[in-house]
């Protein structure tokens, strides 16, 4: 079949590759937001539980981990590509997929960074109004 590319990409792998950044962003948001809500509830019920430190720690670690992974995807996309699609990028189509993935990862890194930084500045568990 010379009409078509010689390789076959694994679909799930390709999907995770394309959505590398957004998936990290979603995971980060879930852990940061959900974790905060749960920890604040726990803090409200027991006096000797230091919610602020726990939350800062949790958000700090997840931000660092997901942020780095996301930046990594934007800078060296070839590695995730080989990991997830189990081959090297060869043609223009691969280039397009990589381009899309890099930009998405870059955007996601910004999102992760911003959500992480806000925790450093704002009081935790305080009500908005």
């Amino acid at each position, binding site marked *: 079949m010379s009409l078509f590319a010689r390789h076959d990409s694994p679909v799930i792998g*390709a999907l995770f590759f394309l959505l590398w950044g957004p998936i990290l962003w979603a995971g980060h948001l879930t852990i940061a937001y959900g974790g905060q809500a749960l920890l604040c509830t726990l803090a409200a019920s027991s006096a000797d539980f230091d919610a602020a430190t726990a939350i800062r720690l949790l958000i700090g670690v997840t931000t660092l981990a997901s942020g780095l992974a996301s930046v990594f995807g934007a800078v060296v996309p070839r590695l995730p590509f080989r990991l997830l699609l189990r081959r090297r990028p060869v043609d223009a189509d691969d280039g397009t997929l990589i381009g899309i993935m890099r930009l*998405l990862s870059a955007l996601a890194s910004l999102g992760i960074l911003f959500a992480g930084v806000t925790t450093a500045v704002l009081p935790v568990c305080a009500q908005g109004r």
Partner: protein
Amino acid sequence: MRIWKTPTGWRLPTAVNNTVIGLLYIGAAFLFFVLAGILALVMRIQLAVGDQRIVTQELYNQLFTTHGTTMMFLFAVPAVEALGVMLLPQMLAARDLPFPRLSAYAIWAYVIGGLVFFSTIFYDLAPQGGWFMYPPLTTTQYSPGNNADFWLLGIGFIEISAIAGAIEIVVGTLRTRPPGMTLAKMPIFAWSMLIFAGMIIFAFPAVILATMLLELERAFGWPFFSAELGGDALLWQHLFWFFGHPEVYIIFLPAAGLVSMMVPTFAQTPLVGYRLIVVALIATGFFSFGLWVHHMFTTGIPTLSLAFFSAASMAVSIPSGIQVFSWIATIAAGRERFRMTVPSLFILGFLFIFVLGGLTGVMVAMVPFDWQVHDSYFIVAHFHYVLVGGMVFPLFATFYYWAPMVSSRMLSERLGRWTFWLMFMGFNVTFFPMHIVGLQGMPRRVWTYPSMMGWDLLNTISTIGAFIIAAGVLVFIIDLARNFRFGQVGPDNPWGAGTLEWLPNDVYSTRSIPLVRSREPLWDQQNLAEEVKNGHHFLPGAPTGGRETVVTTAIEAKPQYIIQMPGPSWTHLFAAVFTAAFFLLLTIKAVTIAITCGVLAVASCLIWAWQLDRPGKGEVDIGGDIRVPTYITGPQSHSWWAMVVLMLVMGSLFIAYVFSYLYLWTVSPDVWAPDGSPMPPHVAYPLLSAGLLVGGVALLALAYRALPDPGKRSWEAFLLLVLASCAMAAAVGIEVWGHWITGLRPDASSYAAMVYMAALLTGQGALAVIVLCLFAGARLATRQMDRVRRVTFDNAFLLYAYTAGQGLFGLLLVHGFPRLLV
């Protein structure tokens, strides 16, 4: 080709081809637009000057609720899905979407359910809670009567039809692309529909769960939302806006995708920044989910989370900005001057209005500002700029642009210009003043206002504007009536576009399915139209002798197999009628007839499914020296894919449930076991239940090995299927029984309701699994299922494994979490 002939006369409703039912779909959506628009006119007449008494407060509440609900659920989402059904197969040069009867079913269900829902406004039965139906306003205490139930069941039902459409679209865009159209060459509209469908899959289950919970509370008193028993009305808001915010983008993304298809044609140059646009679409799709809490800025969420979401609100405007710049760059890069046609006018109008709406959106996203304008007419103005600008204008551009594809005549450029200018002027005259009255303090959802507030003049202007819009829509309808003729004998490619839907077309799409080598094949591949017409590409004949199309691989688009597609039928139509009847009769509490209809609906589905899964016809030649099979099972097959997508939907529903469980715990830990309720039963119960679930999967694995050779029967496999069904039923039964004997009752507290809800969700899946297993057993007994022809078995197995997994997870949560708290 005779096989694709549309049934005529009284058999017309049995048609399933996308070109026919797509028209029905879009026509119905447009009808709902007009109907909801008429309600808007009534509201505007009432508000034209202060102190009017034309409609009562009650009717006014029903009017805006029905208007909002109809526009969002019966017009915007279905219109977009309709365009997907109509345009996608043509753009992908596929003969049809992979499950023609499923889309036909979804469409009929929507048409019938929608019409009944809308008609409640005439009987004073429409709900009054506003389109987002916040409890406690919508609980039985404040809304007795059936009004809210109509909303809940009607909308729940229409969402199911939207999900059916989404499954179709995902499998269609990924698997029925023409050979050579790799993922990186897919038209932008297909990308946007893919993301649209993905968003529906994750967003709609949240609101389906919300409607289920509220209906359970209204009908049986399970206290999910009432505070006295540990419920929380905010839970509804969370679930609703988890869907509601993406909803705006669910509507907007495909519209943007359509614009990205039209702009290059009028500029006669490929889209500038194809990658950027794909990035923007995906990013919007994701980020919009992060936004849900911004709708509750004023309800007292911790400041920290507020900061997250304020940022996310702004971030989501970046991708929209990218798209706008991309379009402008394309227009500027044009080989010739941008052609000023009616579609291009509507596109420019869209850009203007949408950008304004985006600006006010950024204003609303700034937290303190939001406190001021929350629930004022400023918000009404903002979301109409976004929705009408972002969706209605592109839709009209679409009507004018793609009419020649379905009609034998183009729509009139002269009348079209009238339509555009009336709608554009009218729109701004109506909604611009609303910003000002909003800032002056006029609240939304008021049925009248005192004359001395100085709001009269601006309101009068708004009302006049609304009638100008109506005049524009009227001109469009006249244009349609005068110029629209069915049948494809019009010019093949009147705008000189580059994508496949402009190839010479018939009801079955193109004569042969082209080999694609670029994003604009019609521009880059000379003579493609001729070649395709003369059958020089793939599948010029009908090697299986029935309706069929080529299925290709998801990323590289290599031909993989031929899918045999079903033709016209009454079964899906009956299924739709009876499902609609089931839901609506349930609303008026006619339980016996409702259940009869439910059973009939299931029966119709079974007969429908019985006719599917026809045996393969061996390998066939599709042209270009390529031979492919005509039957395939396992992870490559389209039915497997549809099943996986369905499992994603069920998974999202379940995650929304887990979220609700934990959320209610954070709100009222005091009703949770061990403090306020009996502890869950002895661990033997969940263990036995879990054992049965795992055992059931094992039984099916054995059944798989026992599948007979083609043409044979296997009573062993049959028996295993029946046993597995029993295991599933017993697992759910034991779980419910265990809680019951501890004295826990679902209406006792929000905790209890949540406990039984887990079993209910698993039970729902279990019911489907049992029906499917028994169905597979029947196929086995009639020699229609074997080692080779085993799609039915695969489906039953997949669903079984999923349901068992979900059940295990539910057991872990319900029995484990309270023990953690001890």
